[in-house]
């Protein structure tokens, strides 16, 4: 299957939630190519999460078209494009009784690449180890994720996204539970990932420090519209 070099392409996209009389996102035009770090910022309710979920095809536009690696997100084939993506949702926190260990959670990121009865390769296990060292969570690998703090859980989910070696990484408020040191570390790791892998990273964050120093393009949103940075990234 052939994929476009354009990671995301949104053409006059309008998205609305069920029961709402006004669109959560209106008339959005955005193209993101490979090798860019895009920061989407704006106040609460600006439509940032809607935008990231529309890019991944988790939400479908009722007007306009959205493409992920050149595949229309309304098509069933978008699943193949998603295999090239990593995603960290805003609501990543798990309750204290969630018993999956951090190692298990990161391993689950490889699930879409596995055929029946297939388990992880040595190389993939080594990658999990390497990424967790990079994000300073190697001591937490065998701890149940539910027993960890918000910041530790957030690092674990980012590690899962990075371990997949995605061509596009979508991070929804990835700094929300991190302290200053944590934000700095994650920001530099993400920048390094973009440069070394030639991948694209799309970050949604209302708090722009310190990631704004690492971003190639900053897009500002308000009331479901892009107010600056619209167009080609």
């Amino acid at each position, binding site marked *: 299957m052939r994929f476009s070099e354009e990671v995301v392409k949104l053409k006059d996209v309008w998205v609305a939630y*069920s029961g709402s009389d006004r669109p959560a996102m209106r008339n959005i035009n955005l193209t993101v190519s490979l090798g860019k770090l895009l920061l989407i910022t704006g106040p609460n309710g600006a439509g940032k999460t809607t935008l990231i979920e529309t890019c991944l095809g988790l939400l479908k536009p009722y007007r306009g078209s959205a493409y992920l690696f050149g595949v229309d997100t309304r098509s069933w084939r978008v699943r193949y494009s998603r*295999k*090239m993506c990593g*995603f960290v*949702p805003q609501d990543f926190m798990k309750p204290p009784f969630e018993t999956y260990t951090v190692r298990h959670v990161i391993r689950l990121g490889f*699930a*879409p690449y596995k055929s*029946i009865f*297939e388990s992880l390769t040595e190389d993939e296990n080594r990658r999990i180890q390497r990424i967790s060292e990079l994000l300073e969570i190697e001591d937490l690998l065998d701890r149940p994720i539910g027993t960890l703090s918000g910041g530790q859980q957030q690092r674990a989910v980012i590690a899962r996204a990075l371990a997949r070696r995605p061509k596009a990484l979508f991070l929804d408020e990835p700094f929300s539970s991190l302290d200053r040191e944590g934000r700095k570390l994650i920001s530099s790791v993400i920048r390094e990932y973009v440069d070394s892998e030639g991948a694209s990273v799309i970050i949604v964050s209302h708090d722009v420090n310190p990631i704004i120093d690492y971003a190639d393009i900053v897009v500002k949103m308000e009331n479901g519209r892009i107010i600056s940075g619209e167009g080609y990234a």
Partner: protein
Amino acid sequence: MLEFLGLALLAAVLSGNLCGAIGFYVQRLKITTLSFSVAHAALAGASIGLILNLDPVYSAMIVAVASALILGVIFTRVEYGRELISMAVFSTSSAIAVFAIYLSNVRVLATASIAVVLWGSLLAITVEKLILLLLTLFIFVLYILAYKIQIDSMLYDVKMAEAEGINVQMHMLIMLFFAGLIISSSLRLTGGFLVFTLLYNPVAASFQISRRAHMQLLVSSILGASSASSGLIVSYILDWPVGATIALVSSIILLSAYIAKIIVEAARRRCLSCPMLG
């Protein structure tokens, strides 16, 4: 007589086990309403079997599996109003079931064939049905093992799994397919109106007993099997309707699990506030 009771007991253990396990998955994947509709579609199918003079298990299986697949496909196309679609299928299935029973040649409600469909029967368990249950169990376990990492990923976080490229719709469809298959295989034992108690009560009880996902699956399967087998024994001893007795036993187990949880939590709170420990 003992041989026949042994057969029924084995079928009860298998049915209960399967219902408990599929109940866990449908609950964790948040497709409980869908499975509820599928359970009623099975009842409609069994009732249609009465009119057409077919084995109700097979007609239930055809209708339940077909409705599971149709609902699954509709759900991949429709984003909003899914609950309402499920409820529409549930009401339509119930109406078809009642109509089919009315239209069937049998005039008295207590007649054996109708009783099997509605309330379940000990006498309805045959070697053929037992093999069907064993086959269902085998295919279900095979599926769970083959797609373990994908299913685990969905159980952990469905949204993340979908965003990463797992075919969530296909797995939901397969789970619904198994729900249809398991419900219709268990129909003869518990009856169409009570089969879903074996689907939901064990998993609800397991949630009171453990908060760990894998433990919940195990406990739910064990409670399903023990509810069905002990319900069957009680119904045999007291000459009660088997489906209703199984439903009662599973409800008692659920209630006991709930009460036990309250007692354990109260004791834990008392221990924490104990001055010696505090």
